């Protein structure tokens, strides 16, 4: 990677905020209508300044005010919090009891770190096209569960800039969920506890040996990707450590013994061969099937960072911020092409500024405020704009209905 691409110096950031960051788009998305409402004015913004100074409880009347402050403070990134009962910047002048979070998008955070125990391609901060398979699987499962089971429609997925993905849900009902209800929803979607040590704790998500319908739906999909993701790409059961992990799911000790001897004797057997060995045994012994299903779920089911979703007052990085380590923009993603997404194909701030320079040289035109239209940032901004348009249509419909009702 050329060094210019990860240049996130204050000067670069400032140019990015001044010329490229789509403040209007963010405003529309948070505000749900054109005229500033409480959804924006009572919203908390938190800035991480150069030198890791954290500035909380900022709030603004409109997009221009936000832009002015961002350009003045030039933060490395900023985060979006809940809508409070009063303007967050007035927090100190208000009685403690009268200042509480009211509404907030329902958010989810999926991070590659939670997959470290099972992924074989990278470790820690690294991410490659292969790892993305886990994230893509998680996005599919969560996206369809939220839509089908909970009936929410206004979902936007945002790449976190390095090795994770965020989901923001802006349906009115979702925004109004209490912390208790958020906790329940997370409980529904959680099947694997990333904190629990894999080997010590076998998953238990069955009732009387049966999978609940929600997990059955997920399983139907996960079965289709398990082969390529886990067996081919990750080759999870190739090493001794890997297949020992697998054998722990089989409760019948004789089967375990015979498989272990077989696999020890021929270390060249791939994960796929080993999985096929299991399938062959299972075809004559149907009571093994649930264990295999458990394996599929355990290795591919989404691993959520539950704390992010449970509380309304949790802050989450705003879309289009720059990840300070990679220089990449946190871009919104289209869920239908999530499988094809390549994290390394996301524009970096350095790249965008180079594009701007190139245009400037060609046209020699004056600096305008929405220069993103001429860069490779455009498709991503358009994506969020379309999403916000949907939110605004909803509000307008709601208002019109109110008018007619009397």
């Amino acid at each position: 990677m050329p060094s210019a691409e990860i240049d996130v110096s204050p000067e670069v950031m400032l140019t990015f905020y001044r010329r490229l960051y789509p403040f209007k788009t963010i405003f529309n998305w948070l505000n749900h209508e054109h005229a500033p409402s409480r959804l924006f004015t009572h919203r908390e913004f938190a800035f991480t300044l150069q030198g890791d100074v954290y500035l909380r409880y900022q709030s603004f009347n409109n997009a221009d005010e936000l832009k002015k402050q961002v350009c003045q403070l030039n933060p490395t990134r900023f985060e979006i919090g809940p809508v409070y009962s009063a303007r967050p910047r007035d927090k100190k002048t208000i009685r403690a009891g009268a200042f509480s979070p009211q509404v907030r998008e329902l958010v989810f955070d999926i991070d590659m770190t939670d997959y470290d125990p099972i992924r074989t391609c990278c470790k820690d901060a690294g991410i490659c096209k292969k790892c993305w398979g886990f994230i893509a699987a998680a996005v599919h499962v969560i996206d369809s569960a939220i839509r089908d089971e909970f009936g929410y429609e206004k979902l936007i997925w945002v790449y976190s800039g390095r090795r994770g993905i965020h989901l923001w849900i802006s349906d009115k009902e979702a925004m109004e969920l209490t912390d208790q209800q958020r906790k329940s929803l997370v409980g529904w979607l959680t099947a694997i506890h990333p904190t629990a040590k894999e080997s010590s704790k076998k998953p238990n998500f069955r009732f009387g040996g049966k999978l609940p319908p929600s997990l059955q739906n997920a399983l139907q999909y996960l079965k289709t990707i398990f082969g390529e993701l886990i067996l081919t790409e990750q080759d999870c059961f190739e090493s001794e450590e890997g297949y020992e992990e697998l054998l722990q799911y089989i409760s019948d000790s004789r089967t375990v013994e015979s498989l272990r001897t077989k696999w020890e004797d021929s270390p060249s057997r791939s994960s796929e061969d080993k999985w096929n060995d299991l399938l062959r045994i299972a075809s004559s012994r149907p009571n093994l099937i649930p264990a295999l299903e458990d394996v599929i779920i355990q290795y591919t089911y989404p691993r959520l960072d539950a704390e992010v979703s449970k509380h309304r007052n949790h802050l989450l990085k705003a879309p289009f911020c720059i990840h300070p380590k990679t220089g990449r923009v946190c871009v919104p993603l289209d869920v239908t092409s999530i499988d094809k997404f390549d994290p390394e194909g996301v524009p970096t701030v350095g790249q965008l500024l180079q594009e701007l320079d190139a245009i400037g040289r060609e046209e020699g035109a004056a600096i305008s405020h929405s220069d993103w239209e001429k860069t490779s940032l455009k498709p991503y901004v358009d994506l969020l704009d379309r999403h916000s348009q949907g939110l605004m249509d909803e509000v307008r419909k709601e208002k019109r209905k109110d008018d007619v009702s009397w």
Partner: protein
Amino acid sequence: MFKGGHGSLNESYVPQVANHGVLKYPHRMNFYDVPPTFDTTIEEFERCALDRLRILAEIESSAARNRTWEELKTVTRAQCEKYLPLNFNLVAKHNDLDLERRRDHLSHFVLRLAFCRSEDLRRRFVKAETTLFKVRYDDDMGKDRDAFLDSRDFNWTSVGQEEQRQYKTELEAAYPVSKSELDRPSEKYYKVKWTRVPDLVERRKVFLKEGWAYVPSREQSSIVFQEFETHLERALEMTARLLPRLDEDTRLLPILNNLSQGFLAGISSEWSNASGSTNTDEIKAEMVDGMAKKHFPLCMRTLHESLQRDNHLKHFGRLQYGLFLKVLGLSVEEAVAFWRKSFSRITDDKFNKEYKYNIRHSYGLEGKRANYPAKSCLQILTGGPSEYGCPYRTFSPENLQAALLSSYSQQGLRSVDLPEIMAAVKSSHFHVACTRVFEITHSADVRKGDGVGGESVTHPNQYAARSIELEKAAKEAMDVE
């Protein structure tokens, strides 16, 4: 709303021919949607609230003492029977029914006023009230319960046959049917927004489709409880906001203040007003030392031991310990003898001049001649820093463990029992810790969870009297043999 004055209680309840049709409160249970608007006396106002508080305090300490649901139900039922009975429609005469239900209604709303003031009190009140509601709901009989549920609009839609067929497999997978139920006609389902049954959602015990939860009729209670809880939470917040504007004379506020302290130590017990002697056998001054070792709770043992060690006690210590001994049954003559002997380092002259008056004063023989009650746990716990206080609260954990072992090891307290006691102390359930010590040191007669005659410790004299009573019973049993 709460006008004083007597008689209204009887006026509106002229005996009538038993006819359930005219019951003011047709249902045993109450959702407390409508506040009471009848007249009541200030005494009734306080009395029912205290009675209800006794039940709630016991429910709360049950949670702290890790009782199972069945144990909790038994304990709560007993407390309800004692303080706030609520009978079924078929059981009692209709006149009594209305009276009982009226008290239940009134007491709930009085406590709302007392417990709406802080976030913490609200949370505890909601939890205890919801538990009480669940216990009663469990006890309610099928027909009564159905009628009660019908009386309120829960805003649920029943799922039509068509829809039920459409999701047949999902519904069956979500609600596995045991073998015995298989031959039953297909179950009815209700549709509600999923946010109404968060507990079922969290445990994945429900079928969800586009935001709707399909709840089978046997899980219906989950909706009811949730509704009760959220309704009460909202109502309490509303009350809290309106309370400052309560147009009130000076009679109610002190009562409400007093009530809201009640959860702190669990107010239940008649001991709160104990001022006279409770023991029929006369206690002599020289018996105190022996009794202290066998029957006293830790606070009084601590006082007794520091008196023995230093031959002195400071004013508040004397007051606390002296009144305790008075209620225990020490006559004024014996009390003077006891204190004289204990204060062995001062002259007769000084004793008579400086201490005797105070002793006689506390027996109501000097000054304004008031018969002072002994201090309850609540008073000891909430007293100022100059007072001796409850050792479970004031001692450091190390000191407390040492004190417990040295005081009670002869009566069977072992160091393996300490973690449990210390856990209660750590979560500020001091009376629970004390009760547990009582149970352990009386393990021959008292099982775990029995407490002091079925209740938690709320008064040092209650502790001592029960201990003496148990010893006497054991002795009598031995004599018979």
